């Protein structure tokens, strides 16, 4: 029996568009826009001004708070603007705009650190923070914070999230195939930094070649185990992954460390390995550029800050009329309105759906078929929550555990009445959060 969780859905995965395509280095962008808040937590403060010359890897944003990370220049060139700019998260955010000098010169301060065996746990964590590493799965939580749990939590398991359950996205799949050693090295650094002796790498069984690849890289390391998971969305959801791999359930409102687990994305491990090997901070990432509206779907190694329109251009441009441009996959991705917006650390995919493939539906009445109830991986009653949200019944929504919703989108996906359940619950959550703040 393959390990998995209760609920979930089997959407069409469409991974064959890119899963055979080796990672390609993207063309050096002419301009990058580096947002100062690509992560969860306090944004960092720009430490460069217009006219400054910066080099690749140079710190341009300083993080003062604990839950924050610095930002770095991903190319060499001249700072042409320090101002609020559109970003994929929506709205405007303070950003540093760098115009390339075409040289892609490395900052003098960048050099490889000591080898892993000579680094102390604190040195590793500091390297991770200074390299600006955040979770590359999408949420963008500062990794070093995750790796510093209070000792009383008794963290005893690290899980590497390589499930990659979002349809279309193949960035982690290609990473596991092409650079499995980096994932392993990054994981070993995490284990050393946290002092945890046991870890698991969770991969869905639609990527068995990746399982082989990582097993080969692991050779006979006994403390790291590969767990083959059933292919089901959202298998890569943190809570679902923890349940499948360890059988533990993160308590409602709690964190993985409350059950002794820390989860990191495979891409995050590779980013850590990159710092250990080269000293380079997180300034590029693998992004799957794909979808019916893209001429040549690709897995690209992209400089963080590259405008979306540049990336689309490198993949042959739009095929047909674009309907939606999504940052991320089709289940949880954010629809973009401005193609000037940059890629950020959490951009695992850029999905373009052709206009003809974008269907908009008029919702009809709920027939209480309970499909949403069966699909919900948290075991919520999405139809009830949506009704509460429609009637502004926030207290009731909270008592039916609206805050536990992970917004995976399964309920909306299965609803035969086309009710935007996920969106209703999101609205309920934001009302509940704001009423909590008032208290």
């Amino acid at each position, binding site marked *: 029996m393959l390990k998995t969780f209760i609920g979930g859905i089997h959407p069409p995965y469409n991974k064959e568009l890119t899963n055979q395509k080796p990672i390609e280095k993207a063309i050096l962008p002419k301009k990058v826009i580096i947002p100062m808040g690509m992560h969860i937590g306090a944004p960092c403060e720009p430490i460069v001004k217009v006219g400054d010359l910066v080099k690749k890897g140079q710190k341009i944003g300083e993080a003062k708070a604990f839950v924050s990370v610095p930002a770095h220049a991903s190319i060499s060139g001249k700072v042409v603007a320090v101002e609020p700019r559109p970003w994929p998260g929506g709205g405007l955010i303070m950003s540093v705009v760098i115009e390339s000098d075409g040289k892609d010169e490395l900052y003098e301060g960048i050099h490889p650190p000591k080898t892993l065996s000579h680094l102390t746990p604190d040195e590793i964590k500091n390297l991770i923070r200074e390299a600006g590493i955040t979770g590359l799965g999408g949420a963008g939580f500062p990794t070093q914070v995750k790796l510093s749990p209070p000792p009383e939590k008794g963290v005893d398991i690290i899980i590497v999230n390589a499930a990659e359950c979002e349809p279309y996205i193949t960035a982690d799949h290609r990473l596991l195939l092409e650079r499995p050693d980096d994932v392993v090295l990054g994981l070993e650094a995490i284990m050393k930094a946290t002092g945890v002796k046991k870890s698991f790498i969770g991969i869905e069984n639609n990527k068995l070649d990746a399982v082989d690849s990582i097993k080969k890289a692991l050779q006979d390391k006994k403390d790291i185990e590969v767990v083959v998971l059933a292919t089901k969305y959202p298998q890569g959801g943190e809570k679902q992954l923890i349940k499948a791999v360890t059988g533990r359930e993160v308590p409602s409102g709690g964190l993985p460390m409350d059950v002794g687990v820390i989860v990191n994305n495979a891409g995050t491990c590779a980013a850590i390995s990159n710092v250990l090997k080269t000293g380079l901070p997180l300034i590029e990432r693998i992004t799957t550029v794909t979808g019916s509206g893209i001429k040549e779907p690709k897995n690209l190694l992209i400089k963080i800050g590259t405008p979306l329109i540049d990336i689309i251009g490198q993949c042959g441009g739009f095929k047909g009329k674009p309907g939606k441009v999504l940052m991320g996959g089709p289940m949880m991705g954010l629809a973009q*309105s401005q193609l000037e917006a940059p890629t950020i650390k959490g951009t695992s995919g850029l999905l373009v759906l052709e206009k003809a493939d974008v269907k908009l539906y008029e919702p009809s009445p709920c027939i209480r078929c309970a499909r949403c109830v069966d699909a919900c991986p948290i075991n919520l009653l999405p139809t009830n929550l949506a009704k509460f949200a429609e009637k502004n019944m926030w207290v009731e929504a909270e008592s039916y555990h609206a805050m536990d919703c992970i917004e995976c989108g399964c309920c909306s996906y299965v609803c035969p009445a086309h009710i935007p359940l996920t969106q209703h619950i999101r609205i309920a959550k934001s009302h509940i959060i704001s009423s909590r703040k008032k208290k």
Partner: protein
Amino acid sequence: MDDYRLITTSSPHLHSGENISRIMFSVAIALLLPTFAGIYFFGFRALSLVVITSLAAMLTEAIFQKLRNKPIAISDGSALVTGMLLALNLPPGLPYWMAVVGAVVAISLGKQIYGGLGSNPFNPALIGRVFLMITFTTPMTTWINPVDGTTGATPLSLMKMQGLQTDYAKMLIGNIGGSLGETSALLIIIGGIYLIYKGYVDWRIPASFLGSVAVLSGFLGQDPIFHLLSGGLMLGAFFMATDMVTTPLSKLGKIIFGIGAGLFTVLIRVYGGYPEGVSFSILLMNAFTPLINRFTVPKIYGEVKAE
């Protein structure tokens, strides 16, 4: 630059493609099986009753939607299903005009006055049937024998009034007296399995309904197989007690619903004044559904006890 007019709706951006009319028409297709059985055993009259009742149901739905200034949505198939279900629950010899009255009541008092699709607490077809049952008791309990069309009785009334046992094989095939679509247990089961396979019927309801009838009737010294194969039980368990709108949301709730309906059915059959109690049992459990929903909220992932 931004002349693409990109569409920005919230996630998810994929949909399964499932829709309400597909569900309803699948139910209608499954209902064709007992309909064929009815036509085979009771002839043209069965066919015309199904057609007339379905048309009356759809017309009533359209008129009400028009009166309420709502979009006409008879294409969703729900009124068709109600009409078919009602017809299958009628004696084959019922006058047409009574069947039409039943359909009008089913859609108007059973569904539209509550707000239409999704808002009705009771199964509309059963509301129609019980209305006819109480209003036109004699025609609603006048049964005809299959094929020859002579006046006869149902196995349940034969058992209740005269203590006569009907042959199992006849009951399975449907060569017995009864409502036009309830007689062939076999075809109803096949239709039900089709809907379970399609995911439109949760097996828990028919399983717990039939199971509790078998257990309780056996416990009361009755013949469980006879009870399973007789009356409207099969049709009720697979097609009426599984109506999504009027049954509980959770898996546990569905099992409770099925067990409750089974208990009421046997109690009415054995101790009640009517020979049959499936319709009343399902309606009673429909009334309990909000309560069941309230007490069977599933335990969520990582639920912590309220402090």
